[in-house]
């Protein structure tokens, strides 16, 4: 089974996965079962727009607008990023 993400899919951050500001290391992280992922600004910006109701297409449109970047580029980056999290069972596409 391959992991794909369509524009109409609605990504959700799964329970047990949450962003956290690590005060000691001064960095944002994504906490998940047995895993800690360091979040860069882009990763955080993507995850911040996931609210459980917005579709992937809507999220990328918001990001493109917010960061004044080409939508195709944003869409490609966000798809790669979220597909990685889907494969790791941290995000689900519904």
């Amino acid at each position, binding site marked *: *089974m*391959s*992991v794909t993400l369509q524009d109409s899919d609605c990504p959700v951050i*799964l*329970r*047990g*996965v*949450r962003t*956290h500001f*690590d005060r*000691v*290391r001064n960095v944002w*992280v994504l*906490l998940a*079962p*047995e895993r*800690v992922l360091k979040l860069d600004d882009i990763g955080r910006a993507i995850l911040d727009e996931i609210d459980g109701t917005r579709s992937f297409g809507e999220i990328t449109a918001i990001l493109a607008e917010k960061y004044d970047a080409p939508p195709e580029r944003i869409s490609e980056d966000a798809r790669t990023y979220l597909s990685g999290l*889907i*494969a*790791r*069972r941290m995000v689900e596409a519904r």
Partner: protein
Amino acid sequence: MSAPRANPPMAMLAELTHRCPLSCPYCSNPLELERKDRELTTDEWKDVFTQAAEMGVLHVHFSGGEPASRRDLEEMVAHARDAGLYTNLITSGIGLTRRRLEALDSCGLDHVQLSLQGVDAQMADLVGGYKGGFDRKMQVAGWIGEIGFPLTLNAVMHKKNFDRLEETIAIALDMGARRLEVATVQFHGWAAKNRAALMPTREQAKQARLTVNAARARLAGVLVIDYVPADHHSDYPKPCMGGWASTGINIAPDGSVLPCHAAHTIEGLNFDKAHERPLKDIWYNSHAFNAFRGFDWMQEPCRSCELKTKDFGGCRCQAMAIAGDAAATDPVCIKSPLHAELVRRAEADAEDDADLIYRLMPD
């Protein structure tokens, strides 16, 4: 010698108690189990979690024995979560009721890791040494799913169950687990007494790898599988995670602070108690934590080996157990003079058909 600079720990293993209704023959607890009256109090544990969060720990794993044996588990989870920690409960499920799970849910428990002793009642109850354990566990798994906790199933694999790996994967899927840990038994603690009953064959270890790889491909996006291979059948040792005292900090039931759960077996190391010395001081400055940090402590062949920055010379506890010297090369390594003997013994143990020796609680 000045100690190499350490980074803050990422994770804490909190062994709340050694008490457990099961008596698994591969339990990682020490042979000398602590009694209830030696356990840290609720307030002492809470202070440990506060200190852990302040020094940079992100995940706390509530473990044991069976952590549910502590009636104050819920209170400690709530405290750890309030301190900002990610809370994981490592449990056999025995001792948990639906009500307790609901209470843990409202305390903010993030994740549950359930251990599996076997794929059916016959096997599971034999390995766990507890009649009815399997049925109870399946019931608990149902409640975990209904409440919605993210679940990891942890299956310790060995000679007696490796051939049922596919069924183990099927159970993880049935339970709705997101992760499965296929962990080949590590021969520390009680497992060291059970080598002849548990050592997998080379063929089993090889087949397991194939099964895991096929399942990973088939179940991408459904089930994440972490695999801990059988190192006695390998040419190179498993890396000591990031190096000695680099990543995790363990607290034993009596408050002893250890770099890893088997570290108490290493002669010459004295472990401070969490209620007697600040955790941060223990982590950065104690002799035991600095003993094998960096590379200066290494002997040949590790000292001049380029792989040392990747595997850190393997496991110190295994070097202690087999080479009799914690600073020696892990005998799993093909460059160790003890490798041939280790392989010979592993193969002999794999062919054996010994009975299980169960873990025993002190009276």
